[in-house]
């Protein structure tokens, strides 16, 4: 068990290193000299050279990467060109906003979708099933940013039920904060509910067809008990891994949603930085989200054996 956990954790390290190389390389692909961005319009080779030396750009690429990666490990992610503030600080300020949206959306998706999927799978081919599947397919076909736009247009601007601009952190004022979360979370979660519902339906159907379920019936157990004791625990484990996938979707989707609702989260930070060519921020946010994503997926993998004793290694 511990060997498995340790192995799983250790195996995430090369992934992270390679991912950081990719982020670093990606930013080096950009034409132009990063030092130019700092000095702006000053047309003086000496100043440029000084800035290049200050930023370490005169060193070979490998050294540049090592310096950068070393800085990352110490929590030094460089300085934003736009604000002149440390990137780490900007990320630390934006992260709670993104985190709260993603966490609420994930929880909501799980709470709605897993029961819906299990019921649909249990009653396969019934009217209930058809209804759930149709709704899910429909939700799957509505882009989050369009939902967001519709919500803003109707709930926000036309009917004035919810505020369309501004943001209050739930940590400062729970009630007001929650109100600002309603629309972003709905816009973000519909697609994921659909994905998760279909997934949990599929795994329920698969488990329902297995022999030990028939065996449970052959013992004289009622349908409900069979479902609860034999189907649910086994259908849940594969659904859990899909949660990892969903997290990935959410971390991507939140970029657009934050932009829509002007939430000061990581996505907005990054998109703004792309437009401002503030690559230290882009790099920082990318690497930060990768770390979060890899850590969460590792945790999910480590949780897997808890729900599926076959994987006890």
């Amino acid at each position: 068990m511990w060997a498995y956990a340790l192995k799983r954790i250790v195996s995430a390290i090369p992934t992270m290193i390679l991912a950081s190389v990719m982020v670093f390389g990606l930013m080096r692909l950009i034409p132009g000299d990063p030092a130019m961005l700092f000095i702006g319009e000053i047309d003086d080779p000496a100043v440029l050279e000084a800035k290049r030396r200050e930023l370490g750009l005169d060193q070979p690429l490998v050294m540049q990467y090592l310096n950068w990666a070393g800085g990352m490990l110490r929590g030094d992610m460089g300085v934003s060109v736009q604000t002149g503030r440390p990137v780490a600080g900007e990320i630390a300020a934006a992260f709670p906003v993104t985190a709260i949206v993603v966490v609420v959306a994930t929880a909501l998706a799980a709470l709605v979708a897993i029961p819906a999927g299990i019921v649909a799978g249990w009653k396969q081919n019934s009217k209930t099933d058809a209804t759930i599947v149709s709704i899910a397919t429909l939700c799957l076909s509505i882009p989050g940013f369009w939902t967001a736009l519709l919500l803003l247009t109707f709930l926000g601007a036309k009917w004035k039920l919810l505020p369309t601009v501004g943001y209050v952190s739930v940590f400062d004022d729970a009630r007001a904060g929650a109100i600002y979360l309603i629309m972003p979370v709905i816009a973000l979660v519909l697609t994921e509910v659909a994905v998760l519902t279909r997934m949990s339906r599929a795994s329920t159907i698969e488990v329902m067809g297995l022999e030990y379920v028939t065996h449970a019936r052959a013992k004289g157990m009622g349908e409900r008990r069979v479902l609860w004791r034999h189907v649910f625990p086994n259908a849940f484990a594969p659904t859990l891994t899909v949660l990892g996938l969903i997290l990935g979707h959410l971390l991507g989707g939140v970029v657009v949603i934050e932009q829509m609702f002007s939430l000061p989260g990581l996505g907005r930070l990054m998109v703004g930085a792309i437009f401002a060519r503030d690559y230290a921020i882009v790099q920082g946010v990318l690497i930060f989200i990768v770390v979060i994503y890899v850590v969460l997926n590792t945790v999910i993998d480590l949780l897997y054996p808890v729900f599926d004793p076959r994987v006890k290694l």
Partner: protein
Amino acid sequence: MDTMSENLLEVRGLTLALQNRFGLYREIIQDVNLNLKQGHVHAVVGESGSGKTMLARSLVGLLPRGIARVAGSVAFDGEHLDRFSEKDFRHIRGPRIGFVFQEPMLSLNPAITVGNQMREGLRLHTRLSRAEVDETCLAMLARVGIRNPKGAFHAYPSEYSGGMRQRIMLASVLALKPRLLIADEPTTALDAIIQREVLDLMAEMTRESGTSVLLITHDLGLVGEYAQDVTVMRHGSVVEEGSIADTFRRPQQEYTRLLLAASPKRADRKTPAPALAPLLSVHDLSVTFAGRRKWPWSPRGVFQAVHSVSLELQEGENLAIVGESGSGKTTLGRAITGLQSYTDGRVMVDGVHFDPRDRRQWQQMRSVMQVVFQDPASSLNPRFRIGALIGEGLRHSERCDPRETKARVLACMRDVGLEESQIDKFPHELSGGQKQRVAIARAIIMKPRIILADEPVSALDLTVQAQVLKVMMELQEKFGFSFLFVSHDLAVVERVANRVMVMRHGRVIEVASRDRIFDRPLHPYTRRLLSASAVVAEDGKGGFDVAARRVPDRPAGLEDLPYYQDGSAYRIAEAEPDHFVALAKD
């Protein structure tokens, strides 16, 4: 209705049908009658598609979706099950009719501990207290021979082997003391020796508790040994029903006779004259698989699948490699043909070393060695037509023009007994036997001198198996190739082999001519393996005797050899001329 007192279960005119949503249906079993006597073991025997499993499931109301009873009645213990609702069935299932399924690996829930799964039945159907329930479970686990029942109680099913799981199943089903136990191919997934142990246990325990058994099986040997009565089914109908003595000794129906006669029996085989040099010789072949590391820094464990095996095969000879699962027999065969790389040893063909890593040699060897795999459903690429499948080997060896290729394909199809019109079919359009004929045709079109046949008939029904074996022997007669015949089925081996090599845990246990192995086996393991198999013998009067194989005593002087056992040092020695056996190194 005086028969009711005698019969625990009476099925009358039962008809099941598959219905689709338009209401159209196809009958799966028609007008089936069955009488199961109180306290008897009653076997339902039939080949695949006979409807025996659906019959069994319908008795407890566990038919798959889409299949329904359309006619007939089922009387069990004075009650009419055909009038039962799902809820009524729930009270029958478990306490009155227990059900054991075929696949012990699948029928226990992997996510629930053994103890909790055993408790379920007792908690549902008895009023025992928690402590009493646990006590009963532990007693049952001990009864079925699980070491450390307390430990098993808290363990998950995945920690047990197939045989052990089937014991656990028996324990949990019989804990409720049902009046009837339905066992659907309960040991088909298990090795012969373990199968024997589990069935002995089942017979013993049901006798103790007075439970009747409905044993669903395809294995006539088991029927002959464990059942008192038998119902023979075919294509969804009952062919014949009666006591074993009547039905097997004096079969009334042609199909019953056919089925019994299809069991492979020893036939005279001419032994090829020993040549100066063997066609194939294998020296000290070892195959190891790398295991997993426990920790990243700990050394990789190794699993040795084949331990330094040597063998020789003469031109035109059939050497059978026999063993249970995990014996290394399949790995050995694959290593010889070059499909599996080996860690040590040499393979020589006609005295020339064959190195499968050499690409040219590999190509050349294809016209020397060919392979027929176990399951034709998996060995034939589903996307190819029969003609392309059979002709495929020619693409790579000699350059054949399309007309010549087609002519050779057709000739091969005739040789294996396929219709010419089947050349454009896809594998899924053929029956299992026909598919295996395609697989054989695919091999012989290359005109090989050696064919490795890896369990070539074990996926087939008995009657089909007999036909395919016959074709294989006729082809051998015609083309004169040698067979390396890998099998777990002793009856098949007895039918086809000249010589037999018994393997266990990757080691050779015993090698001798077929008659020596079957008539005077030496090694204790060979003897155990033989005694776990059954023999169907014709009695010369149109009837059949089915019984466990009697293993003759060892010849004088060979009783007390230091036979090799697990863990002792290993050597192989010639106990008598041309009879080799594994001994412990002293």
